[in-house]
């Protein structure tokens, strides 16, 4: 895919976000299983419903913008998943495992927010309808809220 226009870039970023969210659906389950404390387990397990809703919104955006439903992998997400795999297999201390789970979750939310910021900017530049922008903003707001919960845990710790 060669990128020549803002519309091409919007499509590419939307595909990346879609791919990332499908991986995140898994990631949250894995982080919940890997976490030691009930608090952190619930934090990630409870995020699943949000992610399912976010994926549905992204699928709606593909439809609203007449773009084919396609996903595109990103080395950033692949790197994050590899990092998660590494910590799952090597961290033995419960406390450190919780800290690692939060660390991975925090990076993940920041990636999501960065992708969404770029998409919102492009959607506004391209004059996409409000229904598109509002869905992106809703996803961003949920990612921001999840990030704050994770940061609150780190501060309380």
């Amino acid at each position, binding site marked *: 895919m060669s990128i020549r226009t803002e519309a091409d870039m919007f499509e590419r970023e939307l595909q990346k976000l879609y791919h990332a969210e*499908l991986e995140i*659906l*898994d990631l949250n389950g894995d982080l919940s299983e890997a976490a030691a404390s009930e608090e952190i387990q619930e934090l990630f397990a409870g995020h699943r419903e949000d992610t*399912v809703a976010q994926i549905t919104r992204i699928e709606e955006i593909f439809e609203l913008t007449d773009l084919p439903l396609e996903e595109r*992998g990103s080395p950033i997400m692949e790197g994050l*998943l590899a990092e998660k*795999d590494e910590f799952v297999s*090597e961290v033995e201390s419960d406390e450190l495992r919780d800290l690692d789970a939060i660390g991975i979750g925090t990076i993940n939310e920041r990636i999501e927010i960065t992708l969404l910021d770029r998409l919102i900017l492009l959607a506004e530049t391209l004059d996409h309808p409000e229904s598109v922008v509002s869905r992106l903003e809703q996803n961003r707001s949920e990612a921001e809220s999840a990030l704050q919960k994770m940061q609150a845990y780190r501060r309380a710790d």
Partner: protein
Amino acid sequence: MTDRKNAMLTTEDRRWLTGEKSYEGEHAKQQRYQRRRDIRKRVHNTILDFTILFEHLEDAEREKLFECLEDDESDDEFEAGLRDGLAFILYNAGITETMLEECSHGTESTAERLLREAVDAAGKRDEILIEDVAISIDATRAPIASIVAELKAGNEVSPAELCLLLESEAVDTDAARDCLRELVVDAE
């Protein structure tokens, strides 16, 4: 299997392929599609990388990579990977078409051509001129069900057929091991 960094497959791919992980619930269909597609792309791209490895990997690096084949204490997992890599390629390039006369139609299959060209390329690397590569496979069709039927009927089954049966899912490996142990111990 979880600590293989920078491999062709990710840990998630391995867990999914071996059945350790499954996708359920909403969006599971898309997750499975994405996993399959990502694996397909990674395997395809890895195969393309073999040309770079064969042509450009420094001799010293190549030797380090394969030195365990020379060791007395060989790396069984590495050897199994090499064997299965070759089997994966040959099988998918149609080697079984050439194994049986009724399927071969006397023409060279893609697997045979690739094997011949690979031997030729390896020879050239060491300045060996390959005059001819003859691939000879002596094989018969041996479906597991028919071997089981022969056993049931009390007919003779060849050692190769027994071996095939042992490697199949039709036989409980632990039970077979116990039987063989008894046989070997009794024989002593």
